[in-house]
């Protein structure tokens, strides 16, 4: 009965969630990075919207978050494909009901770590003219490995991978807790809401 209207109606809700998710990225970055110095938390919004609204809205959140970062630091524009990847991957994982169990969510940290660490490391490596880039990962892990004889590219990438896994593990746990705290009535209005709500309601025995 309300089938045909489902598609368009969600767009309004998703269209308003996307800017909010970008704001959540910025907020989480300010709160988490200033206190923990290791967890960036600037991909929570992207993963969250990817999980509850689908890959396309997740990708759009990634693009907009990147746009906001580019205004402050234009070199970040090279990271655009990664942010998009976070949103899209979260969408596909959510379809396989990953975000319903905590252990399943934590299990896919290496996947996110690979995207956020290894790929971002190699992109920066190319963008920075084949050399180290000044951030925590490359200083504490990259350079010692390089001195121990590991080729520059691999040292750099492994450093990024390790640091990013810590960050992404924290982000995934936070996303899981947020989804668990969101009320079901809110979630089922979203395109991927049904993949994320664990409790099942059958509509038969409603007392009229």
């Amino acid at each position, binding site marked *: 009965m309300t089938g045909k209207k489902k598609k368009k109606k969600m767009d309004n809700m998703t269209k308003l969630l996307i800017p909010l998710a970008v704001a959540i990225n910025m907020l989480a970055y300010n709160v988490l990075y200033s206190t923990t110095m290791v967890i960036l938390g600037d991909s929570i919004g992207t993963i969250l919207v990817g999980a509850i609204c689908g890959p396309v809205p997740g990708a759009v959140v990634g693009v907009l978050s990147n746009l906001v970062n580019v205004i402050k630091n234009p070199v970040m524009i090279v990271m655009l494909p990664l942010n998009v990847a976070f949103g899209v991957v979260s969408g596909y994982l959510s379809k396989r009901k990953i975000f319903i169990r905590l252990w399943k969510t934590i299990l896919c940290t290496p996947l996110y770590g690979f995207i956020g660490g290894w790929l971002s490391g190699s992109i920066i490596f190319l963008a920075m003219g084949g050399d180290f880039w000044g951030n925590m990962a490359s200083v504490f892990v990259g350079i010692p490995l390089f001195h121990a004889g590991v080729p520059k590219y691999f040292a750099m990438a492994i450093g990024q991978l390790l640091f990013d896994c810590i960050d992404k593990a924290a982000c995934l746990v936070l996303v899981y807790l947020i989804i*668990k705290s*969101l*009320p*079901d009535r809110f979630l089922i209005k979203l395109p991927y809401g049904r993949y994320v709500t664990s409790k099942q309601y059958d509509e038969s025995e409603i007392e009229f």
Partner: protein
Amino acid sequence: MAIEVKNITFSYPGSLATAVENVSMTIEKGERVAIIGQNGAGKSTTVKLMNNIYKPSKGTILVDGIDTKERTTAQIAPHVGYVFQNPNDQIFNDDVVKEIEYVLRYRKLPEEEIRKRREEAIDVTGIRPYVEMHPFDIPLPIRKFLTIAVVVAVSPDYVILDEPTAGQDLWGCAQLKTVMDYLQQKGKAVLTISHDMEYVAENFDRVIVMAHKNVIADGEKRDILYRMDTLREAHVKPPLSAQIAQAVGIRDKILNLKELSAAIL
């Protein structure tokens, strides 16, 4: 044992205009006080200073003798509880019981004490039927009683209610009355900011009128609510029954319907 406010002045960070200018008042333990006045008169600011959310630029506030300047907000919270107007700013657990117990666990109270206080708070605020529901599924007016339950569980000596009757229906107002009686019976002081004159006349003994950033009247409710010039200065109307009594020329000071009907018979 009182909150002493000694001519405090305060302006919000980033704004030049003062929000409150040399305000002084004293709230004794067990008293029931209502602050009335137009929006922007400085009501919320005064109350937030008492709760040590902000520290006064000039003057001092003593809560049971402790100067709020030397303590953080969280240290004053066990003495002064504050129920905000918007419950959504506080609730973050996905379960009513966990929400009420969070602060008690945070302060490492014994398990038995936590259970007793939680049960008492749930009964007093009447949210027993909603205990299994997700806090954000509970309708907003009833969710407000969840934040009241959290404050009741902490059982501070002074409880501040910000616009408690906004959006409440008959059940809500009755439930609020049971909470007020419970706090009264426990000897707690209750301070409220409200525009609902019937609620103020019904439940509070002392009324403080605020206008253009300072206190312009402070005294027993029957006397204050009949000072027409003070109320006009504060852009506040007395309760409906008082307005009717005056319009009809009844001399004695009527504050609620019972008195009005007695005077008419």
